[in-house]
C-alpha cells in the first residue's frame, strides 16, 4: 500500500535514471544516512566505536570490494586478506613519507596502489577459472603476507616487525592514534564507505558493471557478443582491490592503529570477507552491508551473552562461538543460499502487493 512504484511519476530523464527510483527507497536511504551522520556521532562512545561501528564499516568496505569481484564478475578470490595488507602497508608508507597529506587522500592513494597489485594478481584469471582460480588467488594471500614479514623496508625496520600508525590530525582534530575522539574516526570511515558504496552502486548499473555481469553469467558467450574479457576481468580485479585496499588502510590507520601481517591479514580474514558476501548476498550492494553487519555483530553478541551473561570461561565461549558460527553459516546456506539481500527482496515484493496479495 505504501511501498509501490505506481503513482511515482517521472517527468525527466534524470529522475527516471536516478539511483533509487522508488520514492520510499529514497526516503529510507536519506533517513538512514541522516541518523548515521547527525545522530550517531553524538551518542557514540569508545566501546561502540571500537567493537561495533568501526569494524562494521571497515568490513563493509572490504565486502563491497569482494562483492564487485565475486558477486558481479564471478571471479572467486581468497586473496582479500593479502590485498588488505597491501592497503595497510601502502597507507603506512604514505603516512610516514608525506606527514602533511590529508588522510582521505592517503587512504584513496593506498587503495590505488592496491588496485595495481590486484591487477597483477588478477592476470591468471584470464586463463584459470572457478576453483582453480580461487586456489590460485591464495598464492597472492600467502606471498603478500610473507613479503610484508620479510622485507624490512615495508615496516621501516621497526624492531617488532609491526607497523604503528603515526598520529595525524584532520583539520586540527587528531584522527589516528590513541588521542582521537570516537566521533571523528567514525565519521571519517562512514564518509568513505557511503561515498564509495554510492559509486559502486552506480558503477554496476553502467556499462562496466554490465560487462562484469555478462562475464559472470557466461564468459564465453560474453566474449562472443563483444565484451572484452581482459578489460572486464582486470577492471573488476582493479576496482575490487581498490575497495579492499581502502578497507585495509582504514583498518590499520583508524581502527587498529597497529598491525602485523600474519594475524591481522591472515587467510581467516579472506574467508571472513567471503562469508560476509555469501551470507549477505552475492551480487548485491545492500548484501555487502548486511553480511558485514551480521558477521561483525554476531560474535560481539555471542561473547556478551556467554561470557558476561552466563559467566562461562572465555576459551569455552570461543569454542562455542566457532561452533555456532559454523552452524549458522550452514543453516543460512541451506535456507537462503542467495543471502540476506534476497530476504529483503522478497519482503519488498510482498510489500508491493500488500494488503491484496492476489
Amino acid at each position, binding site marked *: 500500500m505504501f511501498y509501490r512504484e505506481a503513482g511515482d511519476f517521472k517527468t525527466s530523464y534524470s529522475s527516471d535514471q536516478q539511483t533509487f527510483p522508488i520514492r520510499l527507497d529514497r526516503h529510507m536511504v536519506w533517513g538512514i544516512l541522516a541518523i548515521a551522520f547527525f545522530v550517531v556521532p553524538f551518542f557514540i562512545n569508545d566501546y561502540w566505536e571500537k567493537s561495533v561501528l568501526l569494524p562494521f564499516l571497515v568490513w563493509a568496505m572490504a565486502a563491497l570490494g569482494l562483492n564487485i569481484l565475486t558477486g558481479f564478475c564471478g571471479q572467486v578470490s581468497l586473496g582479500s586478506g593479502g590485498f588488505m595488507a597491501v592497503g595497510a602497508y601502502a597507507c603506512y608508507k604514505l603516512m610516514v613519507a608525506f606527514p602533511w597529506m590529508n588522510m582521505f587522500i592517503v587512504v584513496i592513494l593506498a587503495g590505488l596502489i592496491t588496485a595495481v597489485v590486484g591487477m597483477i594478481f588478477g592476470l591468471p584469471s584470464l586463463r584459470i577459472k572457478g576453483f582453480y582460480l580461487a586456489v590460485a588467488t591464495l598464492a597472492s594471500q600467502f606471498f603478500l603476507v610473507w613479503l610484508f614479514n620479510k622485507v624490512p623496508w615495508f615496516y621501516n625496520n621497526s624492531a617488532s616487525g609491526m607497523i604503528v600508525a603515526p598520529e595525524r590530525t584532520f583539520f586540527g582534530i587528531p584522527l589516528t592514534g590513541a588521542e582521537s575522539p570516537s566521533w571523528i574516526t567514525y565519521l571519517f570511515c562512514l564518509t568513505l564507505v557511503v561515498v564509495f558504496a554510492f559509486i559502486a552502486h552506480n558503477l554496476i548499473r553502467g556499462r562496466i558493471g554490465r560487462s562484469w555481469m555478462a562475464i559472470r553469467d557466461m564468459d564465453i558467450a560474453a566474449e562472443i557478443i563483444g565484451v572484452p574479457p581482459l578489460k572486464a576481468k582486470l577492471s573488476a580485479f582493479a576496482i575490487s582491490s581498490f575497495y579492499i585496499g581502502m578497507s585495509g588502510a582504514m583498518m590499520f590507520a583508524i581502527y587498529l592503529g597497529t598491525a602485523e601481517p600474519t594475524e591481522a591479514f591472515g587467510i581467516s580474514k579472506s574467508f571472513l570477507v567471503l562469508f560476509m558476501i555469501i551470507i549477505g548476498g552475492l551480487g548485491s550492494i545492500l548484501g555487502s552491508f548486511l553480511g558485514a553487519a551480521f558477521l561483525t555483530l554476531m560474535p560481539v553478541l555471542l561473547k556478551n551473552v556467554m561470557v558476561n551473561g552466563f559467566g562461562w570461561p572465555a576459551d569455552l565461549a570461543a*569454542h562455542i562461538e566457532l561452533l555456532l558460527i559454523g552452524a549458522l553459516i*550452514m543453516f543460512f546456506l541451506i535456507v537462503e543460499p542467495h543471502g540476506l539481500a534476497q530476504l529483503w527482496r522478497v519482503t519488498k515484493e510482498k510489500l508491493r502487493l500488500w494488503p491484496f496479495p492476489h
Partner: protein
Amino acid sequence: MSPDLLNVLEVILNGLMAGIMYSLVALGFVLIYKASGIFNYAQGVMALFAALTLVGFQTGQIPFAHVINAALGTHLDTWGPGLPTLLAIILTMGVMVLFAYVLERFVLRHMVNQAPIILFMTTIGLAYFMEGFGDLMWGADVKTMDVGLPSGGSTWLESITAGWAAEGSNYRGMYIDVLDLWAAGVAIVLVITLTLFSQYTKTGRALRAVADDHQAALTVGISLRTIWIIVWSIAGFVALVAGIMWGAKSGVQFSLSLIALKALPVLILGGFTSIPGAIVGGLIIGVGEKLFEYFIGGMIGGATENWFAYVLALFFLMFRPQGLFGERIIERV
C-alpha cells in the same frame, strides 16, 4: 659423490616424503570431489577431528568434560586407562561413519542442485563447526599421538649413505625420518586399496558411476544418498590416516587443520578429479618447495615454503588450466 650433491639428494628425498604427506590429505579432497562435485574444504579439520577422537579414545578422556565441568561445576577428566590402539582406531572409524551419516542427513540432503561456490562455502562452515565441536569435545590443548609408529632418523639409511661421499670429507649420511618412510608405505597401501576398491567391488563401481554422471546413476537405481554417506565415510577414513600420520609427526593441535591449505596447491596441480594426480602433484610440490628453500630461500629471507607451493601450482596452471591430470575442461555456450 661430493657432499653437495648428496645434500641435494637428501633434500629431494625429504621433499618426496613431505609430498606424500600432502598427498594423503589431497586424496580425501579428490574422493569427495569426484563423487559429489563438492570441494570439501573441511578435509583438514576432519583429519584434526579424527586425530583428536583417536587420542581421546586412547587416553580414555571423557567427551565434553570441559563443558560438563563448566556447566555443573564437577571435575571430570578421564574414565579409565584408555583403549588399546587398534580398538580406538576402529571406534574412531565408527565415529567418522556416524559423522558422514549425520552430515548427509542434516546438510548435504538439502544442498542438492546448489551452485558449487555455495557447496564450497558450506564446507567452510562445516570446518568451523567441526573445529569448535572437536575443541568442545576433547579440549583444545596440544596432545601427543602415540600409535606405536617408530620415529627419529633412519640409522640404516644414514650408515649406507655415509659411505657414498668421497674419502676424507666430513659427510655423516642422510637424515630421513622413519615416520616419513612409514607414511610413504601407508600412502602406497592406501592408494592401492582405494583403486582396487573402486575397480573391483560393486560399491566401487557405483561410486564411479555417480562420479561420471549423477542423473544417469540415479536412473539405473543407484541411491545417491547411500553413495554420499559411503564417500564421506571413506574420506573420513583417509582423514583418519592423514590425522594419525600428521599427528604422530607434529602433535595433535589446531595447526593440523591447516594442512588442508597445503593440500590445495597439490590439488590444483594434479587436477581435482584424479587420484594419481593427487599423488604426483604432492610429490612435485614437496620436492619443489624443499629445493626452492634450499637453493633460493636462504637468499631472500627463508620461510618460502608458505607460498612457494601456490606459485608453483599457478605456474603449472598457466599451461594446463585443468591441472596435470584433470579432465579436459570443455566449455560450450
